[in-house]
């Protein structure tokens, strides 16, 4: 894979932000010196292994602990009859907790792979062998895992926005339209599969609970643990120094809670690590979706009616909705505009936030439908988007803080060679391969969460920045070093940044593409005040001068606007109609995402998102076995992600995206890279073959069965 790019933009880079820097902890990572949660040594460490249910619904009748307790090295078996009680009746940062993490509280089994016991032993191998030998008797009940568009028990659910938005009369709008697209799209169950599995060690140290973990926000996880175990928040410390990927899956999960329970019962440090297979049922996932999109337009492509209706699933114990209809509320306007997110509860694990929740699957449906409309109208897909560029938020009516979507399309079209494209499908051939190109738009919200920071001017002239950021592999530590260097008008080598420790205080999590924006804001405020203090030239005492900040008020004072990053995705694919193989030959993504802090890691993150988009378009799919209610092939041999050979050439770059009224200027790029990518690939497959693929992934068998121009 190569990423040859030239960054656009004519403004000269002053200071550190905007120029490429390798990760400050890069050397530690490539030499193995950086330690991850599952490999940090502790004296007297005991090892816990989760035992998961083997039925999809029912009750635990009994747990045969005696034979397992007699096995070598086994110290304890925690289950619903003897585990410490916890509280789930609270509202945390992201709402009420998913009871899946509140392990061993009752005898109900709501899905296959539900945690039923933790076996603790002297070694990890002993714990695993005993956990796998543990016999649990169930009263099994019939389960229902059948997800389909026609579920009569589906219901609308609000999440961060309303479940349903509507203006104008849809049927009238569609009836008055010269051209109508009405299509159903589906996306499968998808999993985060971060490289580093979930792992935590819990220990009591001088009356304080310490948890060494891999997560996306230590203050968040610490407060969840404090709530759940009814502890004084000050008596819980969670650290998470290096994280091998999270993508939304690394919040409070069964492993931390089980480890805390065992450490409390045994009064020893206890580590719990999940296997890849356990992660499939315990760490959340992206719900499968069925989506219906109806577009009505005049012959010139101008939309009169837009309807995006989405159905996703959740467990019987917790509500999480994949809000696929949300992007339509930002992207396109129409006199008749209708969006709805509905949910159905099944005997399955609880889904959760996964990279671009809502937007990733939602953009597949919406941006595929736009391509279908362009085809029907005989209009270039980019021109169609130009004609439907809204002035204000289609649903909110609010102005955009900045919206440079068309600049992305213009720059992308220029670089991709879009002007030479023959719009007719099924015409280009290279040996056994049919070739095609496609495009799609991307957007993701640019939000921020309240954060605190402390910046210290040390007596030796250097600076220490304390902000409870989480670096989940994106380069946050490095980005904050650059932001601090500029805010303090010094060079990055004068800055030390401490992150990933709940004792550093409250800060936004690494999620929702808000991390860098939120943390940078806090650092900039503290650094700015510190610079004013230093300007007084009163000298620096031995303990240094520290200034603290809290962005709560500043975030509250932001004017109400539609704040989003945008992007234009381009893909070229090759399809062998004889075998159904689809290969992406090249991809280009151009983004408008505010100020880019570190072009090196930003490009990696965008390319990573686009790569995932290829994966989503062609490979990723968790298969649920209806008979057992569990997964089929829940490992990385069965769940395919794109291999290197699937990702030949990806370019990511950005255009200027300035909002002079924004105090930070940073928008966040964690998610926008995946948005629209699958649609661009699917649209290219249509251009290659003349066949629309509305069900992901576009597997060889689907291509073969669908036929097309051979």
């Amino acid at each position, binding site marked *: 894979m190569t990423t040859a790019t030239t960054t656009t933009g004519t403004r000269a880079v002053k200071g550190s932000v905007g120029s490429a820097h390798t990760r400050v902890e890069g050397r530690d990572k490539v030499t193995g010196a950086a330690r991850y949660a599952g490999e940090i040594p502790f004296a007297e460490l005991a090892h816990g292994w989760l035992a998961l249910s*083997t039925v999809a619904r029912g009750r635990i009748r009994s747990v045969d602990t005696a034979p397992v307790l007699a096995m070598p090295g086994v110290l304890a078996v925690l289950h619903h009859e003897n585990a410490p009680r916890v509280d789930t009746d609270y509202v945390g940062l992201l709402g009420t907790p998913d009871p899946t993490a509140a392990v061993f509280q009752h005898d109900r089994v709501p899905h296959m792979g539900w945690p039923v016991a933790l076996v603790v032993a002297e070694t990890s*191998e002993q714990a*695993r*062998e005993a956990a*796998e030998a543990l016999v649990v008797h169930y009263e099994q009940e019939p389960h229902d895992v059948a997800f389909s568009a026609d579920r009569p028990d589906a219901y609308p659910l609000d999440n961060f926005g309303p479940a349903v938005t509507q203006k104008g009369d849809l049927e009238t709008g569609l009836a008055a339209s010269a051209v109508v697209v009405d299509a159903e799209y589906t996306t499968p169950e998808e999993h985060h599969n971060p490289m580093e599995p979930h792992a935590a060690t819990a220990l009591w140290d001088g009356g304080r609970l310490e948890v060494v973990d891999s997560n996306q926000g230590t203050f968040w996880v610490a407060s969840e643990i404090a709530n759940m175990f009814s502890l004084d928040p000050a008596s819980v410390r969670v650290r998470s120094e290096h994280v091998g990927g999270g993508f939304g899956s690394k919040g409070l999960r069964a492993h931390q809670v089980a480890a805390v329970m065992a450490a409390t019962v045994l009064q020893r440090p206890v580590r719990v690590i999940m296997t890849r*297979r356990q992660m499939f049922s315990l760490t959340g996932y992206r719900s499968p979706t069925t989506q219906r999109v109806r577009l009505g337009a005049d012959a010139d492509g101008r939309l009169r009616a837009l309807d995006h209706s989405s159905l996703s699933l959740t467990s019987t114990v917790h509500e999480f909705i994949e809000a696929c209809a949300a992007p339509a509320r930002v992207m396109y306007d129409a006199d008749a505009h209708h969006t709805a997110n509905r949910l159905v509860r099944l005997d399955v694990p609880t889904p959760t936030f996964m990279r671009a929740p809502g937007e990733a699957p939602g953009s597949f449906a919406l941006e595929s439908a736009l391509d279908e409309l362009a085809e029907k109208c005989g209009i270039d897909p980019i021109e169609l988007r130009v004609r439907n560029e809204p002035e204000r938020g289609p649903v909110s009516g609010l102005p955009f803080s900045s919206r440079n979507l068309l600049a992305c399309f213009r720059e992308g079209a220029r670089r991709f060679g879009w002007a030479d494209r023959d719009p007719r499908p099924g015409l280009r051939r290279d040996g*056994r391969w049919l070739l095609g190109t496609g495009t799609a738009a991307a957007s993701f919200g640019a939000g921020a969460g309240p954060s605190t920071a402390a910046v210290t001017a040390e007596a030796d002239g250097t600076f220490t920045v304390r902000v409870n950021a989480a670096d989940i592999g994106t380069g946050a530590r490095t980005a904050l070093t650059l932001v601090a260097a500029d805010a303090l008008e010094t060079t990055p080598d004068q800055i030390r940044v401490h992150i990933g420790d709940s004792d550093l205080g409250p800060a936004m999590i690494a999620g929702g593409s808000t991390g860098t924006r939120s943390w940078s804001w806090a650092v900039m405020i503290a650094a700015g005040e510190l610079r004013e203090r230093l300007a007084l030239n009163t000298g620096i005492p031995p303990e240094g001068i520290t200034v603290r900040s809290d962005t709560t008020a500043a975030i509250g004072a932001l004017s109400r606007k539609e704040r989003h990053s945008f992007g234009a995705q381009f893909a070229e694919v090759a399809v062998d109609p*004889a*075998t*159904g*193989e689809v*290969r992406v030959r090249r991809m280009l993504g151009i983004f408008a995402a505010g100020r880019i802090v570190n072009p090196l890691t930003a490009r990696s993150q965008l390319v990573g998102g686009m790569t995932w988009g290829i994966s989503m378009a*062609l*490979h990723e799919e968790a*298969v649920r*076995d*209806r*008979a*057992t209610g*569990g997964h*089929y*092939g*829940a*490992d990385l*041999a*069965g769940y*395919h992600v*794109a*291999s*290197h*050979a*699937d990702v030949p050439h990806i370019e990511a770059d950005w255009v200027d995206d300035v909002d002079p009224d924004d105090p930070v200027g940073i928008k966040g790029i964690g998610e926008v890279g995946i948005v629209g990518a699958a649609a661009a690939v699917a649209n290219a497959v249509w251009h290659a073959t003349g066949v629309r693929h509305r069900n992901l992934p576009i*597997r*060889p*068998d689907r291509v*073969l*069965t669908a036929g097309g121009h051979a």
Partner: protein
Amino acid sequence: MKEFAYQRALDVSGALALLDADPDARFLGGGTNLVDLMKTGVERPTRLVDVRELPLDRIEVPADGGLRIGATVTNSDLAAHPEVRRRYPALTQAVLAGASGQLRNMATVGGNLLQRTRCGYFADVTKPCNKRVPGSGCPAVEGEHHNHAILGASAHCVATHPSDMGVALAAFDAVVSYETSDGPGELPLAEFYLPVGDTPHRETALPPGALITGVTLPPAPVAAHSRYRKVRERASYAFAIGSIAAALDVRDGVVQDVRLAFGAVASRPWRARTAERALAGAPADAETFAAAADAELAAAKPLPHNGYKVTLMRNLVVAVLTELAEETAR
């Protein structure tokens, strides 16, 4: 994970003796499949007898042509061997189409033949599987089977054999040599894998405790003009959903000699003898190739979700034989 003993065997008789002494012991080659199965609890050996250091790591060229490949030759070394590349190119291509570089550096020829199916029900001890627990049932027939067998399967098991290498070996009439404590033996690959029937847990005709010592390929001039094509759901590092090993000798537009074997369609590498018979002496054109494929696939019994494999294999036969024929014509 169950505790197990590990011993390295230094000679064949020592390896056989160690296995005879412990019926729950397993030979360990590269471990690229066995160790995974141990982690998931599918295999629970008491003892691993490491045979990688046995003096079976040579590839020899007998005077009559052909090849003798030692059982512990790594997949990487087999693929790279100049005589394999020159005289059996489809074998090199098949091996290189499998796994990853790291795995091929570890995996052995003997182990490759004995690897287990990647059926997701077989690999998951919480689910029924007749191959893993005889009589427990086959959920794939009614459940997930979009990459399961269309040929030679039974109601008891529809799993496929995952090997790429084995498909090329099947096309080239490989013979498997083995040793037991009672002496040596040989099995043509066509008889090496047992029919599924109602005993899917019995996969090979090897006697209990036997150690594969090598594979012999008889001389086959046609094999010098051969190809392996593998179709999978991503470009690399995935098992086939359909593959083909083909060798073709065409003179004056007429098929003189042909070898065809299919992968990922049956419980074993599937030698397509019906198609070969239909092709022998026939004109080397796409119509004949398609008719031959149809003759072979007439026996296919696809399930509701794997019928595409019939189309896929037919298209592969036509595509690869056409390529080979065109190259001959040049």
